[in-house]
């Protein structure tokens, strides 16, 4: 299929649709307003539903409703909007509802700025809403990668009955790249495959098999059992779903860790450092939950130091340190005001670290 030049927002929206999403609920917010805009034009064309809710709180609860029927549903927002959604996200996690949520991060805290940031890493992987839960969280670094992840995101969400989160930054949605779109899949709700879904209760059906979507377990034993089930699912995901990319790490003295757009800049820095004869490499988590702890430890076993680069105060840095577990020095470089680190800055930081090794 031919390549087209697509904006991240358009491509992500189209990829969701091609993978069966027929419900979009959301509320506009820069830098992802083009996603609802695209959905508003596209959903009616394919018999789907686009609904602009009165707020992000409503939108995520509409997601809860649509996901309960076994349909493929998606919502998108940017940082402040995703904060508003947290209660509903926790409910979706608690009720084990498969759905896809996009956070196109902008500067924070509060209203912050409309420019790109990675400041919601903690919110994405360390909680966000209440309770012991996780979201299967992907941090794509290119538009094509986001499209590719969509080809299995709904499958994973349904397999584990878990909300999937796309953690992107504003640049991912605003930039344009050449991409190849997958074909439209023929998705239909299969009540047999989703006995948990509220697909219709007919007279004569066994009342015991009635699907109930719920996150309330008043009885503490029942809640414990429910949570044990959730935790077992998370352990299974940790064992099977970790994704990451390595670049020139085999002989690297300094391994840079970064995710999303920042990883691209870091990759340019690695190339520049290599050209100067410095053995630098890049480790890029594609899933930030589950975080590739073991893999990062393995990749860095012959390295001398690790540099974590982020467009935040150093949030993934904590996971990087957990992975390295004190074996190597771990340094950090970044900005937390929606200012992207530059190739030159990363190169300068590595050169400075090199002095100390």
């Amino acid at each position: 299929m031919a390549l087209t030049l697509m904006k991240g927002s358009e491509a992500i929206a189209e990829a969701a649709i091609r993978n069966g999403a027929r419900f979009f609920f959301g509320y506009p917010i820069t830098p992802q307003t083009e996603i609802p805009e695209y959905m508003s034009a596209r959903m009616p064309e394919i018999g789907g539903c686009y609904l602009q809710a009165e707020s992000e709180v409503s939108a995520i609860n509409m997601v809860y409703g649509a996901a309960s029927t076994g349909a493929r549903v998606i919502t998108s927002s940017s940082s402040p909007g995703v904060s508003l959604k947290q209660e509903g996200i926790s409910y979706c996690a608690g009720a084990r509802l498969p759905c896809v949520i996009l956070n196109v991060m902008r500067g924070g805290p509060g209203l912050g700025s409309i420019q790109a940031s990675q400041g919601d890493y903690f919110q994405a992987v360390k909680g966000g809403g209440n309770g012991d839960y996780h979201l299967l969280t992907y941090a794509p670094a290119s538009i094509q990668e986001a499209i590719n992840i969509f080809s299995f995101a709904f499958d994973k969400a349904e397999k584990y009955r878990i909300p999937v989160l796309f953690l992107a930054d504003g640049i991912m949605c605003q930039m344009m790249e050449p991409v190849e779109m997958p074909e439209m899949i023929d998705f239909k709700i299969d009540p047999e495959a989703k006995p948990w879904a509220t697909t219709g209760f007919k007279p004569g059906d066994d009342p015991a098999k009635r699907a109930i979507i719920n996150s309330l377990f008043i009885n503490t034993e029942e809640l414990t059992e429910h949570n044990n089930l959730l935790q077992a699912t998370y352990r299974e995901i940790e064992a099977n779903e970790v994704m990451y990319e390595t670049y020139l790490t085999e002989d690297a003295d300094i391994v840079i860790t970064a995710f999303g757009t920042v990883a691209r800049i870091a990759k340019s820095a690695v190339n520049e450092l290599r050209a100067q004869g410095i053995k630098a490499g890049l480790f890029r988590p594609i899933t930030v939950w589950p975080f590739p702890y073991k893999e990062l430890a393995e990749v860095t076993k012959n390295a001398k130091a690790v540099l974590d680069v982020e467009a935040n105060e150093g949030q993934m840095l904590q996971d990087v340190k957990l992975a390295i577990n004190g074996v190597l020095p771990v340094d950090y470089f970044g900005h937390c005001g929606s200012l992207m680190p530059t190739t030159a800055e990363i190169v300068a930081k590595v050169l400075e670290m090199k002095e100390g090794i």
Partner: protein
Amino acid sequence: MKKMYVLIGNYGSGKTELALNFAIKAAERGERTELLDLDMVNTYFRLTERGKMTRMKEIRLVSPNFACSGIETLSVPAEVASAFAMDWDTVVFDVGGDPTGANALGRYYQDFMALEEGALEVLNVVNTRRPLAGTVEKIVKLQQDMERYSRLKITGMINNTNLSTATSEADLRDGYEIIKQVSIETGKPVLYTSGKKEFLDKFLAEGHDPKYIGTPIAIDTYMQRDWDSWIDGLQ
């Protein structure tokens, strides 16, 4: 005579990059040049982010009020009037994408109409690799809508077909075929064909009808970012 170029077109067709190229080339010829960022639609990747570079090239840049890349509500500054009132050799308008973006021009209808005949070129920048400008029908519709919203007649088209980092001469060729049809149907001439020099040269060597090529412009990329060199690496 003052020459005024208004670049409109489908969202993502490459207007900003071309506007910079038009302005820089004019300034390098020693012309007094003004460049106006009239993009009221997009809040990322704006001309205004290249303010320092344009100043160094002695180009006067007019940006939206309080514009920096972080502003959400854009408004047209009074300073736009300088494009019409002052004595420039070359004026370039970088307009927002789609009919929505072209809307910002409507307010200057009387100013545009007061220009000398032949001073104004309203150019539709076309990139047929963009999904919403990928067919003759789509381009014709966009063209009609942009004329209606901007209250200006498009005087010609620019074939700027590209795939960003994955561009080759094949893109210019495919764009040529589609834009040629648009030109035959609408009577709008193809005034320019633009692209990076290496692809443009290869395309020109293929011997297509010059009538649907217009003036070739070898462009430099000024809007390049630190992350653009990255090659997709999903396992």
